[in-house]
């Protein structure tokens, strides 16, 4: 029992309340020692004969081995997708395709905890995020696009909407399940078949999703999953696919665009970002602080639309900074499976090295760094939540995407200056505006060159809301009605010959 002790000044010396460990159990996950490629509805050994280990970034312990698919494996997967497209999936009525998508969505909900735990084990993200955000949103995407499958003629009035063919889809490691859902759901709903290449470091939930798809009895080959590193992705882009959808770094996006230039392949790219989160002096300050924290520390900052540049109007700079620093002290960094963890592990050693390198450049450029005092686990990849003040537009940390829990803080004086600074980046994926003034929100939103502008919130996603970039953040939209178009051949509808004669 704890005794209270009140000192003369009335400042009680009280014990710190330590939350006991609250880990989510791993028992629900059944790992295999070695996984196969999912091709034509079966799990098969890779022709390449190569495997790679996949780890838990919070412990560096090996979880399983997955195949490293070679060009031959990729070609088999694409051929299976082509076969499924031509023999069955393309010609299924939309309402029948919808049934399969609804089935996948329900299975994801039923097995949500298993998926969430595996997602956190393989990717390092806190269980509260995989449980409350990644998995519910992934299921919601399948539900949402299932609803569109039989309504395409209403989505695009006056035009015929036909599927394109085989989609080669390459996804990143920051939201493995959610990105798989963003890619597969619209492709399948519109009658395309797909070959999905999950990221090198996070293949396990995509393979579990393949199990769900197998159990949902989709026509064999409608969805194929090939694991591997960058070479596998390159092989998929080069293979006989009709469309490439890529989410990842701008550098790789540019390579892909060069590779497929001159071919018939359609392309959508969702790439990097360096989003501005803009806080005006009349903003609701405490909620703005939460929005800034969510904007940059959600998923350890491994978010392409992260609010990695904070633009603060000068009169409130000090007040906001003080609140932000105090808030950082309360962030709980540690075991991703602990239900009270706010910030989990950095996804890989390579990413940790990149973050460290950029943070060092910030210090070298003369910006002032702040990190809260918090213990980090000994094993695994970790980085403290970090703020930089005294940042100029010319510093590397204000220009390059860090993709980690590192916030660069700049100030501005007028709305015009905020817009100018916010847009002064090669990227243009997202932006945030914090103000109580509705007219200013609209004024800003008209001028910000970003695919998404959030007002008094940040990192809010919904399947019905399109997402995508300006400039070097890519092109094409995912989500919503707009997310259907990249997977469709849209042609003006010929008037039916009998038109007008039916009375």
């Amino acid at each position, binding site marked *: *029992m704890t005794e209270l002790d*009140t000192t003369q000044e*009335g*400042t009680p010396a009280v014990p710190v*309340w330590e939350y*006991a460990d*609250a880990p989510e159990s791993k028992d629900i996950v059944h790992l295999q020692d070695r996984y196969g490629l999912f091709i034509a509805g079966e799990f098969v050994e890779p022709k390449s004969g190569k495997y790679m280990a996949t780890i838990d970034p919070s412990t560096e312990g090996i979880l399983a081995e997955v195949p490293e698919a070679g060009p031959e494996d990729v070609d088999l997967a694409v051929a299976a997708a082509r076969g499924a497209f031509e023999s069955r999936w393309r010609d299924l009525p939309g309402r029948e395709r919808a049934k399969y998508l609804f089935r996948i969505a329900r299975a994801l909900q039923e097995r949500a905890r298993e998926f969430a735990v595996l997602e956190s084990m393989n990717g390092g993200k806190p269980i509260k995020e995989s449980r*409350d955000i990644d998995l519910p949103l992934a299921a919601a995407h399948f539900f949402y696009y299932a609803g569109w499958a039989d309504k395409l003629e209403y989505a695009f009035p006056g035009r015929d909407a036909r599927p394109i063919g085989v989609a080669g889809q390459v996804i990143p490691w920051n939201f493995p399940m959610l990105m798989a859902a963003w890619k597969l759901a619209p492709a399948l709903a519109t009658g395309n078949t797909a070959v999905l290449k999950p990221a090198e470091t996070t293949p396990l939930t995509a393979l579990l999703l393949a199990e769900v798809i197998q159990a949902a009895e989709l026509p064999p080959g409608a969805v194929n999953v090939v694991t591997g590193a960058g070479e596998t992705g390159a092989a998929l882009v080069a293979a006989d696919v009709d469309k490439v959808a890529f989410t990842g770094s701008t550098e790789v996006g540019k390579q892909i665009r060069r590779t497929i230039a001159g071919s018939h392949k359609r392309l959508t790219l969702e790439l990097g970002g360096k989003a501005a989160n803009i806080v005006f002096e009349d903003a609701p300050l405490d909620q703005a602080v*939460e929005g800034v924290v969510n904007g940059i520390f959600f998923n350890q900052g491994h978010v392409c639309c992260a609010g990695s540049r904070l633009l603060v109007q000068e009169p409130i700079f000090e007040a906001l900074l003080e609140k932000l620093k105090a808030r950082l002290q309360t962030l709980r960094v540690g075991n991703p499976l602990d*239900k009270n963890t706010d910030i989990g592990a950095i996804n890989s050693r390579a990413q940790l090295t990149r973050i460290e390198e950029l943070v060092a450049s910030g210090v070298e450029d003369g910006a002032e760094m702040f990190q809260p005092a918090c213990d980090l686990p000994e094993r695994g990849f970790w980085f403290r939540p970090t703020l930089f003040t005294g940042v100029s537009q010319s510093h590397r940390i204000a220009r390059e995407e860090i993709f980690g829990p590192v916030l660069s803080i700049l100030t501005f004086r007028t709305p015009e200056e905020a817009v100018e600074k916010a847009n002064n980046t090669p990227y243009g994926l997202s932006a945030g505006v914090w103000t109580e003034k509705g007219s200013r929100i609209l004024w800003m939103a008209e001028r910000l060159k970003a695919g998404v502008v959030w007002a008094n919130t940040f990192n809010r996603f919904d399947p019905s809301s399109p997402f995508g970039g300006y400039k070097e953040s890519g092109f094409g939209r995912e989500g919503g009605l707009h997310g259907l178009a990249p997977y469709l051949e849209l042609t003006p509808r010929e008037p039916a010959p009998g038109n007008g004669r039916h009375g």
Partner: protein
Amino acid sequence: MAQAAQIEPSRPLPVAPAEAVRMAVRTTAVDAVGLEERAASLAKRSIKRDAKLWALDLAIRSMDLTTLEGSDTVGKIVAICAKAVRPNPLDPSIPPVAAVCLYPQLVPVALEQLEGTGVNVASVAGGFPSGLGPLGARLQEIRDVAATGAHEIDIVLNRSLFLGGRYAQAFEELVAAREAAGAAHLKVILETGELGSYDRVRQASMLAMAAGADFIKTSTGKIGTNATLPVALCMLEAARDFHRETGRPIGIKVAGGVRAAKQAIQYLVLVHETLGADWMTPDRFRIGASSLLNDVLMQIEKERTGRYAGPDYFTID
């Protein structure tokens, strides 16, 4: 046995009166969506084992065991005082509550029952719950209760003046009440369920703190909407900013509708992650409740033994 709350003496106003109204009315805006999201996210903290037992113990030590019924009698007060001192007669490790909260007429009974126990006597006063009687009568009631020897006095904000935009007058009434309360510990009830928005809750919090309240309190328990997690968070954030600006620590009391141990723990998490360890004490945090105590006792028993005891193993007073 844990020590009961220590009451700090009345001090000069933390903010000059001319500044106070401006400070309250121009305080930062509150975004309802963001506030509610943050409260909901904190409510999901998973508090287990030792951390849970510590919180449950603190919930008891921070409790204002309350009865505010027209039907309260001497017998009822004697019973509730016994429960306050020894919540579980079979378990001496259970601490007493912070205070017993009741109507002015019954203060002498409680003072006699609780003498030397360390449990404080808190009385409502000042025309509770509406605060719309004649000002002179309301102030006299506060003076009387203070003179009788109540340690703590819970008064209400004049919502009629506040919602009518007569901030200076509402502020002056609170300052007068502060003086009338003398050395007693003053809690100002904002009746947040009547204020209509979180912006208003924050403004009222600032006004009451600037007027010299020792505590700000959510609700009277007499209307439909009582304490909620977002309202409490809004007040905690106001108290945090007030402390930063003036150096004066203000306590928070949540009241009304807190019946389950789980809710009490959620409020404690809010306090812990907003104001920090210094507020995790009955000097700066209170829960006003009547039926909460037995649920906390039951959860402590369950945490220790792994089993739930039936409700009849806990006394009803």
